[in-house]
């Protein structure tokens, strides 16, 4: 019998495998609404991009939503409300419940680096999904930051006259489009890695559905 285990975990305080809700309902709900919003906005956005590409390529039509520019714009300007409202609820609840501070901080560069190297070697443990590792913390905070940038640059494109400060912050109308695109590309990259990670640790998908 290990004395260390006995001192660390008093027997009375640990009932056997009590299911603990790791992700509260509001996190799961806002997560999946965000998935819907991002999916609609990204695929309709690709269609809008194709009408006047910034770079020397177009998105394959079959991956886009809307059928034509006008249809894509209808989807885009409907789903933007979902993304923005849902994002505000997510941020507000994270701040009010203290979840942001609890789950994402402290975030130390040394730990990010250490966990990143461990992950590349396949040695990053996932036995406790109740805690984010440092790479996860950075990635999720990064995704939130990218969503904020994509919303702000989108506002600058949509209301370039009414929001002069935002327009100038983005470097003018044309540049706001580029920022909007790059933020989208960053989110697409995050989604790609995120989905691969979920495939590698399928329990995390259950966690985001059932909460435990």
């Amino acid at each position, binding site marked *: 019998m290990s004395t260390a285990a006995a001192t660390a975990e008093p027997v009375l305080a640990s009932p056997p495998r009590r299911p603990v809700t790791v992700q509260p309902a509001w996190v799961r709900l806002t997560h999946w609404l965000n998935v*819907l919003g991002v999916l609609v906005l990204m695929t309709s956005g690709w269609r809008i991009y194709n009408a006047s590409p910034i770079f020397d390529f177009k998105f394959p039509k079959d991956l886009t939503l*809307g*059928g034509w520019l006008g249809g894509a714009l*209808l989807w885009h300007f*409907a789903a933007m409300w979902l993304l923005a409202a849902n994002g505000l609820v997510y941020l507000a609840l994270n701040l009010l419940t203290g979840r942001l501070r609890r789950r994402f901080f402290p975030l130390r560069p040394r730990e990010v680096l250490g966990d990143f190297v461990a992950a590349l070697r396949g040695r990053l443990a996932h036995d406790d999904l109740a805690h984010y590792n440092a790479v996860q913390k950075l990635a999720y905070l990064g995704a939130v930051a990218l969503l904020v940038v994509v919303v702000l640059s989108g506002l600058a494109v949509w209301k370039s*006259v009414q929001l002069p400060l935002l327009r100038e912050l983005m470097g003018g*109308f044309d540049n706001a489009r580029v920022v909007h695109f790059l933020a989208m590309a960053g989110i697409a990259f995050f989604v790609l890695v995120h*989905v691969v990670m979920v495939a590698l640790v399928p329990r995390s998908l259950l966690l985001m559905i059932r909460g435990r």
Partner: protein
Amino acid sequence: MPTPRHAAPTLSPRDQHELLKEARRVLAPPQRRLFLRGGMTLGGLALLGGCSITNSDEAEHLLMKISRWNDSVQGWLFDPTRLAPTYPASMITRPFPFNAYYSEDEAPEVDGDSYRLGVGGLVQRKEPWTLAQLGALPQQEQITRHICVEGWSAIGRWGGVPFADFLRRIGADTTARYVGFKCADKYYTSIDMPTALHPQTLLVLQYDGQTLPRSYGFPMKLRMPTKLGYKNPKHIVELYVTNDYPGGYWEDQGYNWFGGS
């Protein structure tokens, strides 16, 4: 609808085939179908998910309702004193792009001598205007950015009559909601009254110091740097003030009616 995943369509190839077949059946009549035009795409099918594809009319109806609601939000956001940025002449885009729903050589030819601008609706003075009469009114010039709904933009130099002055001159009811436009190229559109009265809204007769050329809308266009390109009608032959929503050529097909920044 099932909860969408990150990944693209999870339909089996057979389901995809069936859905595409159904989509083609629905599309068979050649009449206008908003966001189905140009073919329903797989991305779209995936999103409609469990919903029957024949419900797309309802989806279209809902999206149009949201778009009309967006019009109200944008009207509320619109500050009638906020000016669009202006630029030095050195930044004018040359050549300034031609853009319409037809090619440049199909632009209408309007005879300037016999031309009359018709004025109607909720206005006190409905006499038509000749180009000479319009040219005799106080003129204004602007170098502003034209932004197309497609995303590109170009800087141009326009000159003409401040539209607010013109509306007052014809005794327009400026408490009315809309100003509608009919054009020589069968184009039509309409704008909100606050934008019509905006200090940068011009009834344009000149481009870059010259008579407005045919390709840019001779004999006149309405220039609004606070609106997207499709809201700026060219070759205007008649304008009217009204409280009944007049819609527009592109707007009736799905482009947002407010269409401005």
